[in-house]
């Protein structure tokens, strides 16, 4: 079985990537707003680690889908 991404799936991957980037920006803003508050700094730091995993699993894929075939 091979699951070549169809157009709808490729669009979904790109849309998820956009949402990940939005969340990343929002978390950075929150971290900045909460600078000096351990609760905010540590929790936003943890969220950033999970965002990195999402980028690894989704954004890298979106990037390669946006590139022309080699």
């Amino acid at each position: 079985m091979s699951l070549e991404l169809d157009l709808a799936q490729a669009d979904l991957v790109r849309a998820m990537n956009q949402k990940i980037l939005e969340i990343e920006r929002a978390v950075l803003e929150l971290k900045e707003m909460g600078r000096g508050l351990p609760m905010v700094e540590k929790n936003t730091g943890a969220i950033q680690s999970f965002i990195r995993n999402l980028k690894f699993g989704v954004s890298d894929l979106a990037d390669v889908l946006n590139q022309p075939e080699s």
Partner: protein
Amino acid sequence: MEPQLSGYWNPYLETLDRDKLIRIELKNFREQMAFAKAHSALYRRRLEGFEPGDIRSLDDLKNLPLTEKEDLRLAQLDQSESIYGDLLGVNPAEVTTFRQTSGTTGKPVYVPESYESWQWRIEVWCHILWMAGFRETDRVFIPFGYNVYVAFWEGHYAAEKLGCEVVPGGALDTKGRINKIIEVGATGLFNTPTYGLHLAETARQMGLDPRELGVRRMLCAGEPLPPATRSTLEAVWGAEVYDHIGGTEPCAWAAMCRERSGLHLMEPFFLVEILDLETQTKEVEEGELGVAVVTPLGRRSFPLIRFNTKDVVQKGGHGCPCGRGSMRIDGVTGRTDHLTKIRGVLFSPVTVEEVLRGEFPEITEYEVTVRKERAMDGISLRFETREEMSEDSVKELRARVGERLKMKTNLRFRISSVPLGRLPRYTLKHKRFKDLRGLEDHES
């Protein structure tokens, strides 16, 4: 999620075609290389003169030096600024987890993980566990105190993350662990192959049939798992048994899918090269044996570039009935540092395990020792049988074992049997192969 996608942790990535997978891996390799050069003193030195932009294809990787375990040990000799020496890739204050290698082959290497890098490892393990069929409905029992060793910690956190209920089983003896498996109704086990066999043996001594304890799935870690041992575990537990391969330094970089035939490289988390055993400069062809060289592509607290795992594997193809596009390895045959010459013959201890577990179910435990006997190397095997046997039967068994080992290894073993329970049982890495030649030379 569409039903055909439910077997994947990340279906779009796992079923991606090879060309795209490799493009992602090369991009991440360049980023990881740039990070390592900027943040790790070790790689600033080692990669001087090499630039990430030089890496445009898999062939270009071969120009970069390999990182050997000894390089890591040397880089930790100077601990004046940090116990991690020159290996640390982040500010020391960012390290949240200390792990270390087992020290089987020398001084242990300390491995620092930041929260971010640790979560990256956990994500890799989520892929592994999901691929092996672990789900939210599983209750996973881990019959160990994990100490500073990494695999069961990774398994613990990843199982929790994907929604399993995790029951840690440290600080209990083996009977206590079996009672706990029954008490909580564990459906999954993470253990070393050796300990999986020992648990089953102990259960039988308690009058229990391991097949009736309710364990449906087992993931093995910490030791090689030859096919014969995996089959034995599946038979005695009545469970699906999964293997993976990895190490403390690089993380787990290949694992088994539900087909349970060979292992998938965990792409694109790692860039894995399978290089020829002799020169370690050329990628081997499908079906050939080679040594695995691994670059983890997302860990920043302990960056590694082209780490020589010394694991000897048989390169497989890509494509699998499970639909994953990753490259496969068809078998793990041992480690280059476990291969040794005895009387001029290249010997791998895994061969003995494969013969005994595959062909002699009456043997429950064994130990192989090599020592100098005057000018010659002598190799001996001691074994225990599952049940008491007559003298004649043991004699006949010794002869059959000797014949099979001679055929498989081209070596004649001195073989003896010992009473049940005489040989040590291991929970983590076993030490069934003892090469005393250098040691005894040194002592004399």
